[in-house]
């Protein structure tokens, strides 16, 4: 830029005076002494807490049946996550060493009839309005489970409708085996062997050549577990109307029927088979059709309904996502963006920027100092707000009869820190755009439109799901992925929508998208600052 005209000693003195620390201190003093900005940032924190509080206050989760208030059962898996555990189980006790083998010759099912409008027709009887068909994750096979309690540890080998043979364990584990489904012409042999806490799954297409699918350790299995045959089929979900009214997921119970023969159990004391309906009943969160089984000779026909799987984000379950307690972060975001933009445009308006640049001629350094100050202040305000809002609003939601899905402490920490970091980076983005555009109203609008509008459009289903997903991958709004608290498992059919708390990118990947936008904006602002007169 400018040729060095100063003597070396003066240059050194200047470098010392205009160091980054000084610029930082100057910007912090500026921020601290403008009352409006401090108030704005306080408002941002307050709005974050208050809107979530209002939403929690305005919620009511009372569950009523004709017989009176009901108490839903929310099973939790061995990993502490919310699960669906509903299936029909034909079982016998199994000792510490043993195995179960079976041949699956058929997997068929019944689906609710869907009217042309997308609605599932309500049936009059248990079988009314059903027609043959399977959900992609309808399943049947063999299972070894710690007990008949919902949420108990398990490992299972199964034939699925569309995903081939799978070994699944403890709700979250899923390993692929042989492809294709089972028919009488092309059956599938399945085997589970137990050695203490270790369960190994095998599959075979001919009953002679076996392939190991996976070995899993189920810590703390009791000496005697239940081993047997099962069938289950998740509720059908149909996506209907869109618009600001929101998408409605109309689910209906489905049924899967599997036929197994050549059943052999080793390591089981002699005795009859027992049959249990796991889950279902009036306390079930999800609708479940009654299961049954029939035995003729060595052939078992097992019919079941429900699912053995983790609860997906925004699924049909009746629980709430803890990220809802931070719904107010939007309001906080808008307030923080306004303050961040003014932090730089106010200097342009008053002409103070000329003084600033005269005192600290390295313009990139001034911009960096401003970015650090606004980022740190916003992060602090956001973190305080999040740390208050999450426990307070969770407590309120529970007090109103809501059930919050259990979330590991680390994920909760990520939710709070991630939300604060998102606000901070959004403020830096706003600051950079404010410096680049120099007109506060335009800069504020650009940032809000880039962050809030894509989320809003995706959350309220103004756009079709696919288009909304792309917006949440590319726009700065992708950062809301840090608020996803429940992972989206591939072994559960689930429409991943932002309304359900499910984002197309991994939490920190989404955050990185916002960081990339902020970095690009900072680079642009630094370039323009250097090029332009103040």
């Amino acid at each position, binding site marked *: 830029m400018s040729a060095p005209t100063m003597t070396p000693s003066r240059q050194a003195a200047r470098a010392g005076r205009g160091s980054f620390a000084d610029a930082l201190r100057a910007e912090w003093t500026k921020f601290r002494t403008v009352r409006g900005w401090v108030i704005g940032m306080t408002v941002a924190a307050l709005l974050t807490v208050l809107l979530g509080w209002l939403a929690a206050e305005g919620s009511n989760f009372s569950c009523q049946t004709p017989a009176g208030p009901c108490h839903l059962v929310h099973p939790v898996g061995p990993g502490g996550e919310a699960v669906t555990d509903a299936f029909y189980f034909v079982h016998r006790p199994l000792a510490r060493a043993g195995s179960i083998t079976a041949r699956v010759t058929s997997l068929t099912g019944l689906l609710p009839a869907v009217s042309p409008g997308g609605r599932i027709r309500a049936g009059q009887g248990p079988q009314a309005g059903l027609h043959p068909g399977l959900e992609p994750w309808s399943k049947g096979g063999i299972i070894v489970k710690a007990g008949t309690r919902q949420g108990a540890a398990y490992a299972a080998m199964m034939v699925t409708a569309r995903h081939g043979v799978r070994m699944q364990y403890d709700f979250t584990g899923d390993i692929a085996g042989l492809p294709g489904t089972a028919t009488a012409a092309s059956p599938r042999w399945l085997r589970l062997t137990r050695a203490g806490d270790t369960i190994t799954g095998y599959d075979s297409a001919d009953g002679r050549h076996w392939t190991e699918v996976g070995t899993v350790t189920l810590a703390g299995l009791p000496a005697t577990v239940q081993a047997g045959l099962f069938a289950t089929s998740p509720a059908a979900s149909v996506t209907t109307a869109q618009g600001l009214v929101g998408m409605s997921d109309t689910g209906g119970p489905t049924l899967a029927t599997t036929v197994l023969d050549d059943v052999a159990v080793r390591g089981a004391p002699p005795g009859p088979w027992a049959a249990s309906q796991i889950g279902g009943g009036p306390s079930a969160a999800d609708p479940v059709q009654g299961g049954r089984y029939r035995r003729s000779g060595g052939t078992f026909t097992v019919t079941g309904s429900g699912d053995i799987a983790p609860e997906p984000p925004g699924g049909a379950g009746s629980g709430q996502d803890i990220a809802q307690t931070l719904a107010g972060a939007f309001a906080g975001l808008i307030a923080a963006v306004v303050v961040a933009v003014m932090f730089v445009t106010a200097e342009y308006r008053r002409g103070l920027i000329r003084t600033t640049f005269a005192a600290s001629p390295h313009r990139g350094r001034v911009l960096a100092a401003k970015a650090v100050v606004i980022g740190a202040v916003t992060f602090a305000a956001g973190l305080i707000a999040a740390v208050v809002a999450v426990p307070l609003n969770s407590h309120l939601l529970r007090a109103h009869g809501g059930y919050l899905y259990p979330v590991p402490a680390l994920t909760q920490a990520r939710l709070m820190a991630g939300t604060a970091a998102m606000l901070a980076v959004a403020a830096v983005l706003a600051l950079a755009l404010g410096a680049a555009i120099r007109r506060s*109203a335009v800069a504020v609008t650009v940032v809000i439109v880039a962050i809030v509008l894509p989320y809003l459009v995706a959350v309220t289903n103004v756009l079709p799901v696919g288009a909304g997903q792309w917006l949440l991958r590319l726009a700065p709004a992708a950062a809301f992925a840090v608020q996803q608290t429940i992972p989206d498992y591939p072994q559960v059919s689930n429409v991943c929508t932002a309304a359900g708390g499910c984002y197309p990118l991994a939490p920190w990947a989404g955050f990185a998208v916002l960081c990339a936008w902020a970095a690009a904006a900072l680079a642009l602002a630094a370039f323009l600052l250097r090029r332009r007169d103040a």
Partner: protein
Amino acid sequence: MRTVPGTAWLLLAVVAATVAVSAAAAAATRCPAAGCGQDPARASLTGVYLGQAAVAVLAVLAVGGEYSTGMIRVTLAAMPRRGAVLTAKAAVVTGLVLAAGAVAVLGSVLAGRLILPGHGFTPAHGFAALSLGGAPVLRAAAGSVLYLALIGLLSLGAAVAVRDSAVAVGAVLGLLYLFPVVAAVVHDPQWHRHLEQLAPMTAGLDIQATTGLRALPLTPWQGLGVLAAWAAAALLAGGLLLRLRDA
């Protein structure tokens, strides 16, 4: 206003943003079978969501610009009747937004008319081609133009009331965009309905609905009325504060 360089750009932005987003939304909407529950008029007017942001900036800068440069003192010295100043500004903003909005909405309807039949919105699926001849579509299109004008007035009122363009535009966009976000997490159906009836954007955009009118919490014109009430309240507050305060 004619001489401020940003105005022409912003009017262009209103039209470009509205038409571009509308066309993109129409291109992303599919109707695979009869009775797919889609609203073709609403889909092809989606761009209003973005266009209104440009309208808000335009209206806010119409006064915010004067406050930031101190020009407002000159204006008020020349026109001591402050109510008349506000009325004049409101008239100019309304006229500009109505003109730009009409162009934007016509462009959006045209894009929808060209794109949607290729995506399953065919007579076989129960959809006639989008045309302003049909009363509901005409109401949706004209209502969208009025919606944009009311957003302009709301923003103008807010800008006069808070006297800072950044705060004003933040407040207006917050008002518009936050209601639906909060409504999405409120689980009490009654509260949810009240929020949708109160929210300026949700209620105001009811004017775009041409199908499923019975499921709406308000009739289309009532919805636009809610937004008109918000705009009137903002203008009233702005007018009162303008009269009471020093510039």
